[in-house]
């Protein structure tokens, strides 16, 4: 395309400045083409730094450069999510990408042009020197000469953290000869198996279940995980500073010992000799282009100010108000002029949309593509007109499906649209070339009769709304690693004995039958004792005043044990008492009722007849290909399931559960579209007016260009609009309606309703139950819910209630940066300002209605420029809805609110959350509220603040620590998530269950449901005998095989579950394979343990309760052999008996 532009001589004047400083003025759509042309004019061995005002712009420029300069190496230098003076560390992933870009700049071999795109934020931030010289560690499958211990040492040096279970970037774990490591820039962590000094195998593995992924990796580079490395010099400097700054002592002491601390990067200016500007990393002849110099300058100014504010807020507090405690000035952002000075005599261009009018500026004449806002057809008509006038047109769209669709649209107007791989150097006039590519914007050159249209312009979408980004394909969810991490005092449930308290894990020697001279390969071991591990549980005392009874649970019975979740402080059961049996009995009865209800609903549905939709049409494919994201595997599967359901004559009743942002709406969009194509109507029922607005927007955008009549119905529509919609529904003119409970009111008739989509059904009141039921009769139903459904429950009701779970998050969602600290006006003001700086919004949670207005007023004083709204539950519903919708429409910057935002609010632009008195909230609540931010593509911040004057209770400290760690696999977090699952189960099963859940614990309750449902299906015998199996065999997981206690417990539990009679036949094999994968080849004891587990399963299937070695005998009970079986077995027994004897 650049060739075509060059031939048109439009850029001739501009290209004369390829080797000297220049200020260009031109429209936005032409700046990347000019950049590409300038790069070409400078020759292949040219390098360039492009500076944009925002990171979003940087991304757009990056995409467009791929399109206009396909042979160049184009990399982004992402900015830290944090500010240099903020006491938070940037994520390892960002660091990884930055270091990769810097290294690439250094190693550039001049074979192809090289472009680094940086937002002003990353361009102006001073860097530690020598980052590009850090050689990453290299792992090569089959390579030799590795020393695992030394490797681990090196990893610590380049700032990796050693853990027992790798879940985050920048962590590593060593077990035996296995190294697990998660490189900062990698998509998946790696597992390297060493044998001696040889690296035998290198594979990627998945974080969720810690299992290897099928594809092998030949070679991997482990780059540093941080930009501040704890070298000897840094550690020594930290040690020296300790005495000078007592308030920072904790942090400095750790650094001095070589332990990375959260937020230590903010000390870099003091710990390092010097920081260098980005230009130090650029080739000496690289050109620098500033895109939008006016905006870049403003942002640079704001950045500097906010950063300073953080310096004041964080550090003056930390150093108790001392003036200029440490000189961290070197960490300040450079000014744009500073960067220019640092650039030396490198070529410096600016690209401004404004015409400065002076002599020196170079103007490039071009027209922007006219806007056809609201008229999707407008752009197509415009293109046809241009083509008739003999213009050459290029239309760039990001997906193949959209290219085809564009060809169809043009063909429909009898114009020539030609899909091409690359734009020809010699284009024909009167032809529209359709290419794949993502452009910022298009342009028109009337003199050259040449026009380029971006996808947004051609399809009439509002620019900026389209947040296209290629998402990496997330791996499918499998079993999640859930280490049974027990701390003394934790409450657990034993299926037989009830609720007890975990005391400790002990090893005991147990007598295990008389054995002599046993041992591998004839070694003579004459001990009759075997070491076993037990969990000790405490129960209520059998006599008042006495210490509690104790129960020793052997490891092979761990499957009977679950952690208690369900109520606050349950009473411990009495061993052998009747309370537990009674509680279990009550729960079992309730569960049975639920199961009956489920089965009844199921059979009623199976007996009714609905509409069977046909297979997908070409339009359906076009719509699906226009989806601007890569579907997650979960999404694809769910969509297939939904379509299959719709194509059956039995009415669909499927529940989709998945967190907000995981892609439920897209499933709904596709299902609705499928229904509409057969002339059926679709009703989508949502609980709030905000959701009506949000879904309306999504649906309208996705259906753009297709003849679908879409209407909204909520209290925000005028009477006339509502009347039209209702009339349209009755006449069949409206295809899809999205509405609140107004859809359930009398007088609403559908001509031919085919699909009902219900979002968050549990949030509709009882008064709507009947209307809902009527609406749901004999049509396909798709229910959606954001509360998680427990996996075990999902499996239990499979086949009775269809369910799909969207559990794969869109992978490039950043974890939320969480700051925990004392409340401080300056911190709050700085946090709000930073968010305003990027045009975002802030939630400020204060959970007291009585003082909420005062807090809002205070905040208004702190940040006078912010527009502040207040929302709480005591406002009338109408006012509240208005406030929330206004906030979503960005009429306010800060929403001071109570916890009513906890559920169902999805505002992608709000990315800072401040919680006042965070110590007053429960863990699950904090987690839930924090989930309100971080939904967009911006990095989100959460501030959990507590009152400095009041002492913090130990549990509150614990909670805040857990939430700050932000690790979903952490012990406490699992429990918090379970709290949510309880709600999810409630939504699915309905009815009053909380009492029973509190009585027996959530896990056991779910297990009971599973048993009850399968009992109805007649699958498995209900209940389970407790088996005592004790053999004089050395069978356990030794500590040198699995070092960490919680992981050992996890393995025992998995094995014990797999050994249950009800488990799948290959469950034990699966566990063995997993052990081999995660910990290496099992030693003999483990192999024995596996064999014993198989035996256990075998014995349980035979209904035995005792297989115990006593003295020199093996005692088996119950041994009830009916005569027939005695005779029956005699024949076969002989042969087997003989083989048994032969072995002796």
């Amino acid at each position, binding site marked *: 395309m650049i060739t075509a532009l060059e031939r048109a001589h439009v850029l001739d004047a501009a290209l004369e400045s390829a080797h000297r400083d220049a200020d260009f003025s031109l429209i936005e759509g032409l700046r990347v083409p000019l950049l590409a042309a300038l790069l070409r004019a400078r020759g292949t061995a040219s390098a360039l730094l492009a500076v944009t005002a925002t990171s979003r712009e940087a991304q757009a420029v990056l995409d467009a450069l791929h399109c206009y300069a396909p042979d160049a190496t184009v990399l982004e230098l992402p900015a830290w999510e944090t500010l240099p003076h903020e006491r938070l560390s940037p994520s390892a992933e960002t660091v990884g990408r930055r270091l990769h870009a810097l290294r690439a700049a250094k190693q550039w071999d001049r074979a192809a042009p090289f472009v680094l795109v940086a937002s002003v934020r990353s361009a102006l931030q001073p860097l530690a020197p020598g980052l590009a010289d850090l050689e990453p560690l290299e792992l090569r499958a089959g390579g030799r000469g590795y020393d695992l211990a030394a490797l681990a040492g090196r990893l610590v040096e380049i700032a990796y953290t050693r853990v027992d279970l790798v879940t985050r970037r920048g962590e590593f774990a060593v077990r035996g000869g296995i190294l697990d490591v998660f490189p900062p820039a990698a998509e998946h962590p790696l597992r390297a198996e060493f044998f001696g000094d040889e690296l035998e195998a290198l594979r990627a593995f998945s974080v969720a279940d810690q299992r290897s992924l099928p594809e092998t990796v030949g070679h991997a580079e482990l780059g540093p995980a941080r930009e501040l490395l704890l070298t000897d010099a840094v550690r020594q400097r930290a040690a020296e500073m300790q005495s000078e700054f007592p308030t920072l002592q904790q942090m400095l002491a750790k650094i001095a010992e070589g332990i990375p601390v959260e937020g230590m990067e903010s000390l870099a200016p003091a710990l390092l000799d010097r920081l260098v500007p980005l230009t130090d990393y650029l080739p000496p002849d690289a050109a620098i282009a500033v895109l939008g110099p006016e905006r870049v300058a403003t942002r640079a100014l704001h950045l500097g100010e906010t950063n300073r504010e953080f310096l004041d807020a964080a550090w003056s507090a930390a150093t108790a108000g001392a003036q200029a405690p440490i000189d961290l000035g070197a960490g300040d952002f450079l000014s744009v002029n500073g960067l220019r000075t640092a650039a030396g005599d490198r070529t410096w261009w600016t690209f401004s949309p404004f015409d400065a009018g002076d002599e020196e500026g170079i103007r490039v004449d071009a027209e922007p593509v006219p806007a056809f806002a609201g008229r999707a057809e407008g752009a197509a008509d415009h293109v046809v007109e241009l083509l008739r006038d003999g213009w050459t047109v290029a239309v760039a769209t990001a997906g193949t499906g959209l290219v085809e669709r564009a060809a169809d649209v043009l063909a429909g107007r009898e114009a020539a649209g030609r899909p091409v791989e690359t734009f020809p150097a010699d284009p024909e006039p009167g032809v529209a070339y359709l290419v794949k590519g993502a452009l910022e914007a298009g342009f028109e050159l009337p003199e050259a009769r040449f026009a380029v249209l971006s996808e947004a312009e051609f399809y009439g979408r509002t620019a900026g709304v389209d947040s296209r980004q290629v998402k990496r394909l997330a791996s499918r969810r499998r079993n999640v690693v859930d280490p049974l991490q027990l701390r003394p005092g934790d409450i657990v449930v034993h299926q037989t004995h009830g609720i007890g308290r975990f005391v400790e894990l002990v090893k005991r020697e147990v007598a295990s039958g*008389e054995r002599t001279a046993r041992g591998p390969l004839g070694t003579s071991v004459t001990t009759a004792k075997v070491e076993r591990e037990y969990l000790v549980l405490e129960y209520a005392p059998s006599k008042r005043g006495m210490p509690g009874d104790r129960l020793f649970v052997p490891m092979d019975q761990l499957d009977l044990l679950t952690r208690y979740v369900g109520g606050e402080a349950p009473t411990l059961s009495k061993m052998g008492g009747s309370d537990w049996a009674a509680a279990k009995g009550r729960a079992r009865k309730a569960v049975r009722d639920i199961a009956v209800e489920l089965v009844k609903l199921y059979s009623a549905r199976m007996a009714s007849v609905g509409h069977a939709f046909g297979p997908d049409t070409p339009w359906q494919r076009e719509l699906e290909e226009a989806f601007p994201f890569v579907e997650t595997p979960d999404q694809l599967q769910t969509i297939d399931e939904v379509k299959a359901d719709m194509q059956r004559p039995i009415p669909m009743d499927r529940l989709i559960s998945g967190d907000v942002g995981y892609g439920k709406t897209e499933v709904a969009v596709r299902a609705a579209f499928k229904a509409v194509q057969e002339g059926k109507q679709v009703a989508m029922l949502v609980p709030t007016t905000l959701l009506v607005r949000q879904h309306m927007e999504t649906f309208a955008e996705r259906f753009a260009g297709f003849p679908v009549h879409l209407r909204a119905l909520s209290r925000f529509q005028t009477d006339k609009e509502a009347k039209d919609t209702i009339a349209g529904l009755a006449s069949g003119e409206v295809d899809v309606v999205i509405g609140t409970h107004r859809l359930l009111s009398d007088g609403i008739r559908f001509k031919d309703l085919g699909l009902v989509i219900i979002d968050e059904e549990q949030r509709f009141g009882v008064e709507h139950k009947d209307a809902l039921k009527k609406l749901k009769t004999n049509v396909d139903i798709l229910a959606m819910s954001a509360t998680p459904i427990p996996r075990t429950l999902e499996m239990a009701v499979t086949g009775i209630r269809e369910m799909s779970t969207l559990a794969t998050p869109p992978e490039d969602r950043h974890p939320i940066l969480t700051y925990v600290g004392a409340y401080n006006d300056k911190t709050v003001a700085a946090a709000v300002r930073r968010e305003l700086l990027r045009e975002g919004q802030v939630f400020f949670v204060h959970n007291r209605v009585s003082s909420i207005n005062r807090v809002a007023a205070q905040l208004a004083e702190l940040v006078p420029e912010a527009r502040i709204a207040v929302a709480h539950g005591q406002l009338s519903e109408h006012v509240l809805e208005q406030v929330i919708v206004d906030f979503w429409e960005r009429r306010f910057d800060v929403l001071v609110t109570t916890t009513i935002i906890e559920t169902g609010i999805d505002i992608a632009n709000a990315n800072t959350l401040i919680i006042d008195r965070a110590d007053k909230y429960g863990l699950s609540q904090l987690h839930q509220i924090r989930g309100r931010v971080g939904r967009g593509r911006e990095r989100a911040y959460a501030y959990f603040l507590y009152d400095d004057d009041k002492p913090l209770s130990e549990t509150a400290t614990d909670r805040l620590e857990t939430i700050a760690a932000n690790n979903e696999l952490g012990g406490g977090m699992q429990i918090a998530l379970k709290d949510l699952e309880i709600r999810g189960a409630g939504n699915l099963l309905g009815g009053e269950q909380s009492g029973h859940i509190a009585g027996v614990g959530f896990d056991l309750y779910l297990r009971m449901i599973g048993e009850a449902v399968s009992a109805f299906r007649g699958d498995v015998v209900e209940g389970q005998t407790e088996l005592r199996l004790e053999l004089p065999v050395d069978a356990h997981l030794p500590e040198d095989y699995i070092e960490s206690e919680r992981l050992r417990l996890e393995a025992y539990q998995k094995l014990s579950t797999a050994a249950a009679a009800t488990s799948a036949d290959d469950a034990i094999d699966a566990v063995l394979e997993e052990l081999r994968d995660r910990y290496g080849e099992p030693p003999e004891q483990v192999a024995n343990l596996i064999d014993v587990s198989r*035996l256990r399963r075998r014995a349980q299937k035979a209904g035995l309760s005792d297989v115990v070695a006593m003295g020199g005998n093996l005692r088996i009970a119950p041994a009830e052999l009916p005569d027939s079986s005695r005779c029956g077995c005699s024949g076969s027994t002989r042969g087997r008996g003989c083989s048994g004897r032969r*072995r002796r």
Partner: protein
Amino acid sequence: MRLQRLYPGARLFGQAKALSVPLPKDLEDAALVAWVGDLLDAIFPIPVPATEPVE
């Protein structure tokens, strides 16, 4: 008792519904587990549930 032939010394306690079989001597751990497995297969065949296919 035919059991006696296969597992000499084995005794069935009718009252306690228990079976007692002498453990073989000099077996390695793995072999011992296998021996118990064989014993179970021989004397306690898995009851066949109505709905499940025979294993």
